[in-house]
């Protein structure tokens, strides 16, 4: 019964402290339902019982306006309930802040509008947090621009990412799977698209993954790698493939304009070629396409040369695809 209810109210319980928090929720929930029914039942009962019936004369009503017993009950019952809630809330909270010593530390950086994850053995992923199951994971959060907040509903955990400061959160995933991550601190245009995934793997699988991190892309052709990177590196948050413009110009449009002039907001223009694409990924603030805002962060350090070539190849291929 309780399991069914938990499923109804909450996402899956994946972290070690999730069930504790859900139980706290149900404790408050049941107390609230009880109090609520007392209030509503009392209200309806009194209102109906003492309603002014048709034709009844107005009369002097009772002067009763207090009852020591009832009033002490009003104080004591809520006081007991909130005391339990407070103590429970703090006890569970302390479990959530005290990070176990054997935790793996992963650095999480928020940036408008994607997440970067730096793993302890080197290696970086974008918008994909890969962690082993049954192993405490400590996340050290910060932000490169404005406030973001890192929210994993299945872990019941959330923490703001502040610029120029670190914040810490941790969890211990109990079940393998792929789960949602949301940004919950408003951060501008792409706020609602600033999602990511947490991928929980079996420890052995994670080991394998961690060893391969950063070396797996050599074998696939450039434009296919580019297509992968397009979503993996969160280009899709701002650039579409269908010609419609989001925060930035669509890849398709740029692709179709290959070799033609592009006009910037300061009046200058340049020919779209490999060099232009490369510099607009690495130094996006220098040339802003007319009609758009200067919001793109630099990808310096986030893409290696092969990956840059791959993205360029992917972009060029879009035009050919559309002509077929």
């Amino acid at each position, binding site marked *: 019964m309780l399991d069914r209810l938990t499923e109804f109210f909450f996402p899956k319980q994946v972290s070690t402290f999730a069930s504790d928090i859900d139980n706290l929720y149900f404790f408050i929930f049941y107390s609230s339902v009880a109090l609520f029914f007392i209030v509503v039942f009392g209200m309806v009962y009194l209102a109906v019982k003492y309603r002014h019936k048709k034709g009844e004369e107005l009369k002097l009503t009772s002067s009763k306006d207090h009852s020591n017993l009832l009033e002490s009950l009003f104080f004591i019952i809520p006081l007991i309930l909130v005391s339990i809630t407070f103590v429970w809330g703090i006890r569970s909270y302390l479990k959530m*802040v005290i990070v176990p010593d054997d935790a793996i530390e992963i650095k999480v950086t928020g940036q408008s509008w994607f997440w970067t994850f730096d793993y302890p053995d080197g290696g970086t992923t974008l918008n994909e947090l890969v962690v082993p199951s049954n192993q405490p994971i400590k996340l*050290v959060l*910060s932000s490169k621009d404005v406030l973001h907040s890192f929210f994993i509903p299945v872990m019941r955990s959330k923490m703001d990412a502040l610029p*120029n*400061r*670190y*914040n*810490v959160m941790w969890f211990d995933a109990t079940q393998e799977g792929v789960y949602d991550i949301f940004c919950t601190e408003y951060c501008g245009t792409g706020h609602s698209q600033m999602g990511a995934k947490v991928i929980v793997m079996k420890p052995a699988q994670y080991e394998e993954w961690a060893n391969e991190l950063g070396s797996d892309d050599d074998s696939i052709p450039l434009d296919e790698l580019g297509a992968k990177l397009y979503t993996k590196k969160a280009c899709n948050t701002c650039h579409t493939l269908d010609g419609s413009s989001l925060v930035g110009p669509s890849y398709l449009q740029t692709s179709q304009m290959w070799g033609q002039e592009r006009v910037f907001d300061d009046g200058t223009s340049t020919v779209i070629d490999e060099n232009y694409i490369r510099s607009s990924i690495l130094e996006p603030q220098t040339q802003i396409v007319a009609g758009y805002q200067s919001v793109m962060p630099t990808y310096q350090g986030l893409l290696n040369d092969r990956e840059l070539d791959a993205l360029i190849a992917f972009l060029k291929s879009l035009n050919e695809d559309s002509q077929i």
Partner: protein
Amino acid sequence: MSEHHITPLRTYLIIAASLLFLSGVTVWVSYIDLGPLNIVVAMLVATIKASLVAFFFMHLLWDDKKNLTMFLMSLMFFGIFVTITLLDTEFRGDLDLNPEVKDPINKRAVFYDTLPLTDTHGHPVDEHSDNHHEDKDHH
């Protein structure tokens, strides 16, 4: 309006003299190094001065006590604001389990990196005879 209290002239003069005297005292004390007590002494003197102003110049001593209540209330809310804010700012990273939470990542704002060194008059010192650094100073 004849019943209003009229403070005698002598009181005003004595209060003003004490205020000036205390101002001298607090400057004099500031040249003595008392360590952390410096701030305590300075604030103590300032509070004595402030009470003199409030009670005598502002007539709180003789006024309706409601007015005094209003004034004290303002101090109380100020106290609440300070105390509770300090509960956060003084204790960040207080569990010492996560020392990285304690301090900002960069202690110094980035724009200092481009500021040229100056002498005590604010003129840039030509250390590297770096020309384009100088333009920055003339705004």
